């Protein structure tokens, strides 16, 4: 198992613009204007990845807007307030044992039409 610190290092290396933030005991990674899979509208959103257990999900990806043009998803969180911004999230469970980078890609796949 790769240590959390190593996972953070790997994630920040892959996404140099990512910012690591905390609030209320949760860790977050903020990424600005990421490109969503083709077909999604809008094409770009900012995202907040929470790589730890939250509301029964092993990790959660919050988007700055709701997305259409992707497979129909269950948007269980709308306008949830985190770090002074409003976020949207679908019900999407990730497997255990993933690194932060793998979690992020797994969440993004939920919006892929392929």
């Amino acid at each position, binding site marked *: 198992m790769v240590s959390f610190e190593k996972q953070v290092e790997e994630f920040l290396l892959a996404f140099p613009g990512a910012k690591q933030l905390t609030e*209320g005991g949760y860790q977050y990674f903020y990424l600005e204007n990421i490109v969503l899979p083709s077909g999604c509208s809008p094409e770009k959103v900012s995202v907040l990845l929470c790589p730890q257990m939250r509301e029964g999900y092993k990790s959660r990806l919050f988007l700055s807007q709701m997305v259409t043009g992707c497979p129909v998803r269950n948007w269980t969180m709308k306008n949830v*307030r985190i770090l002074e911004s409003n976020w949207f999230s679908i019900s999407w469970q990730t497997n255990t044992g993933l690194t932060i980078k793998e979690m992020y890609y797994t969440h993004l796949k939920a919006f892929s039409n392929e």
Partner: protein
Amino acid sequence: MSKVTIRIPQKLYDTIYADLLRPHEFASERVGFTFSNTKILDNGEIIICMNEYTPIGEGNYINDRSVGAMFDSLSITDAIGYGRKNRKGVFHTHLHELSTGNPEFSSTDLEHLPPIVESANRIAKGQIHGLLLLSQSTLNALVWIPEEDSYRKVDQISIVGATLKLSFPSNPLKLQKLERYNRQSFLGKYSEAIFSRIRVGVVGLGGGGSHIVQQLAHLGIKHYALFDDDVVDESNLNRLVGGTIFDFENGVSKFDVAKRTIESLHKVASIRGGKIKWELDTDAVDCCDIMIGCLDTLHVRRDLEAESRRYMIPIIDIGMGIDRPKNEVASIYGQVHLSIPGECCLICRDFLNQDDLTKEAERYGEEGGRPQVVWSNGILASNAIGVLVDIITNWTMNDNKLQHLTYEGNYHTIKPSIFMKTYSDGCEHYPITSTGPVEF
């Protein structure tokens, strides 16, 4: 001119006061720098959150008896550099040790200190800088507002602790003696004036919130931020104070019911918020002096506490539940939590935890209303108002405010929680240094 408010945690104030009180080898007074993060709200109101302090180092003082404290330029450069690097406001801070009430800047202060603020304005641009002056019990401040191109007194200072110490430097409180508040004059000679100045936020205007609003209006609160996106339903009429059959039949919002209650007692009242979720008008939350949460869900409690902590707003949370095990007597229970910025939060208390948040998420979308009754809502709301009045007026003169009350509805009792003695001093989830706007 926009309202300018300074908020500072009591613990930080105490730290600064204790530091400035220390005798120095040759300087007759000490100096430090307090750092802040500022938010400008949609209406131009300015909220300055004081969240760090650094004293001037021993070696930075210069032996010059002509002034209370002379120090080298390096300490100023360091402080302003820190403000610039961390995007914080920089406030020169000193103490008038003999002053007991609201301290006034001396002519020497006003002659010698402004150049420090001017340097900060030039170097750490985009922040609001100024001067802080402490007395034995409170503080005063001058701020430089870039848009106004001048110094000005702040309008309100809130020292946020178990007691909310409020002062209004630009327009000090005056004695008010309206006949309608005669019977509550024991709350303090300025209590009437304070109630008429502060803004109280209430999230959730149903069974609990309707009692809260009614009592706030009777107390003399004139500024509100109220939030509920729901309309009056027939099933609300067993407990929604002020709600009528007319409201149900005409789809009147709970917000409008609350507004009507307030306006029936005050010809002039400022009411922000609306028939919306609080998350959609957070400026109306951030300008509040105190929040009261009357919420059904744990995750919204968590999010409201996070927002309130960010802007140093105490929050009183009330909640009740009724368990109905099959073939057994129903059990009514509830709680009142007082969450003070800098002190243990609802997560520290394990009132909010992953297990319960997970269970709540699993119930997402379940149909059916939970049982609720008017009297237990009223008891919890009345106690929340009692807590609010105590922290604003300190009429009980008790510095150890009760932060958690538990209600046992089957025994008609409400008492201090036995868990309070286990609560930590301080909070690791919401450090004071993380207050103010988020820098993404």
